[in-house]
């Protein structure tokens, strides 16, 4: 398995605060990679730098060996790295189907002249089919005409994933996808993520729900106070003394 995404000496400085300090890790193709750490460890900042939301102070994000750090978010997306947002960030005023259709934007780039002349019927049909297929994958096909803002919390999270999935990404960056879900919903979502992974999508996930992370990830990177702490499989991380110390503080006494 080759490295799809490589984070090299990534640093983000907010004024006097070094939120992420020379972070290094690699994400292998076709795996689910977890990024964990206590609150304020810099996980979301790292995410924002990979997805192009922030421009890193220094360091590189390499996608298939190409440096994508500092590119705009839509440019990163067009290279196949698509993210979801914390909470339920959706087009709340639009319908579920329209949300999914926006996800197909990159594949079926709208053209204003074709739209006026009515020459984009094939594209529109294909985009529609594609959006429906993505909605079916996440079990939302019965809700296409609902307003996205009216959906239940679980459905909104699923729709957020649908929008990302509809754009046919190579890498999906999921920012706390299990927040506010009950155990049953979490279990379902984990199943869907495994299915995504089987479809060849590489997943990088930031999450606080340890049970989900441990059950899902092939590889976990743990960070604390902006610095790399440990990396390994779920069992390694669970028993890693530095990780336990970071989460519980003074693990030595416990041991």
């Amino acid at each position, binding site marked *: 398995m080759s490295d799809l995404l490589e984070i090299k000496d990534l640093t983000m400085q907010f004024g006097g605060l070094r939120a992420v300090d020379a972070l290094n890790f690699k994400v292998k193709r076709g795996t689910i990679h977890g990024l964990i750490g206590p609150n304020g460890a810099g996980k979301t900042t790292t995410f924002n730098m990979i*997805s192009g939301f922030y421009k890193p102070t220094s360091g590189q994000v390499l996608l298939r060996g190409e440096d994508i750090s500092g590119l705009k978010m*839509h440019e990163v997306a067009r290279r196949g790295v*698509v993210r979801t947002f914390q909470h339920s960030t959706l087009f709340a005023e639009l319908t579920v189907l329209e949300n999914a259709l926006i996800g197909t934007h990159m594949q079926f780039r709208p053209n204003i002249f074709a739209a006026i002349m009515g020459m984009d019927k094939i594209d529109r049909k294909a985009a529609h089919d594609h959006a429906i297929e993505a909605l079916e994958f996440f079990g939302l096909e019965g809700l296409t005409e609902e307003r996205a803002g009216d959906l239940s919390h679980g459905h909104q999270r699923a729709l957020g994933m649908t929008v990302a999935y509809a754009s046919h990404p190579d890498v999906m960056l999921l920012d706390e996808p299990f927040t506010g879900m009950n155990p049953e919903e979490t279990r379902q979502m984990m199943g869907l993520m495994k299915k995504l992974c089987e479809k060849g999508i590489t997943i990088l996930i930031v999450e606080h729900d340890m049970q989900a992370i441990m059950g899902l990830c092939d590889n976990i990177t743990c960070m604390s106070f902006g610095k790399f702490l440990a990396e390994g499989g779920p069992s390694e991380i669970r028993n890693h003394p530095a990780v336990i110390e970071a989460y519980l503080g003074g693990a030595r006494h416990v041991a």
Partner: protein
Amino acid sequence: MRNLLIWGLVAVGLVLLPHGLSFSQQEILVFLTINVLLVASYRLLTLTGEWSLGHVVIMGVGAYASALVSKKLGVYVPVAILFGGLMSALIATLLSFPLFRMKGFYFLIGSFAAGEIIRLLWKRFRDPFGGAKGLKSIDPMPDFSIGIYDFDFFEPVSYFYFCAVVVGFCLWILWRIEKSPVGLTFHAVHWQDKLAEASGVNLRAYRTLAFAVASGFAGISGALLAHYIGTINPNSFDIEVMVFVLTWAIVGGTATFYGPILGCIVLTILNEIVLREMGFEQLRPLIYGAILISSILFLPDGLESLVQKAVRTLKRGNRQRSAAK
């Protein structure tokens, strides 16, 4: 089939409409038709969530461009009108570079400043813009005949027919744009620009596209105006006119395509016909302001919300009737 019938009736109604009006009302009707295009194009810009205060000046760019090419270069007037639209779109594209570094309130103020700069340029340069007095004796639309009807463009009725066809065609294009994936992307840029960007939407490009297209149609409306009244000056396109456009859009509501058009028609009828007939000549701006404030207070979703409510009630009535059967 039913739609075709409705549109046919609308067309017949528009053909007959000016013949039931007085001469001054026919003139108002021409201005109303032009303003409908102006406010409908403004809505396209607001789709991306940006409200500009420079729209009327952009309309003026179209008016000046069309007037100048027909006057100085002798370009055939319909071609000049098209050129006016293209010029507006071009100027808007250039303005988008500084303006779209800003968003929301800052964009609003920035667009006002940009508009004032253009207006002051017209005032400052007597050649070719004619300075503060503006351009006079702009070529009118040349007369022509289509067999059953002789177009004499000094008659407001003829010019109304011409405008109605042009504006109707432009509205059809605007409608097609809004209902297309491009329109959907505009909505997406408005409601959640970050998520749209994460889906690969180039925000700058789409904001600029909406701005340029909206400006192009505003330019066409300005050109239509210039060739009708025959004289334009920088004050024809000042902030006062912009306030009218904003009032139409706000009172009408911007959630639907027809909202701003409805606002424009209702307020024009109210302003020009009802209030003028009732002899409130001096009080009209005051009453206009009061209408704006009360519509924000009591009808925050605009006149269009009344239409939507009426349609819903009608549909429910129909359903109950068919259920009773």
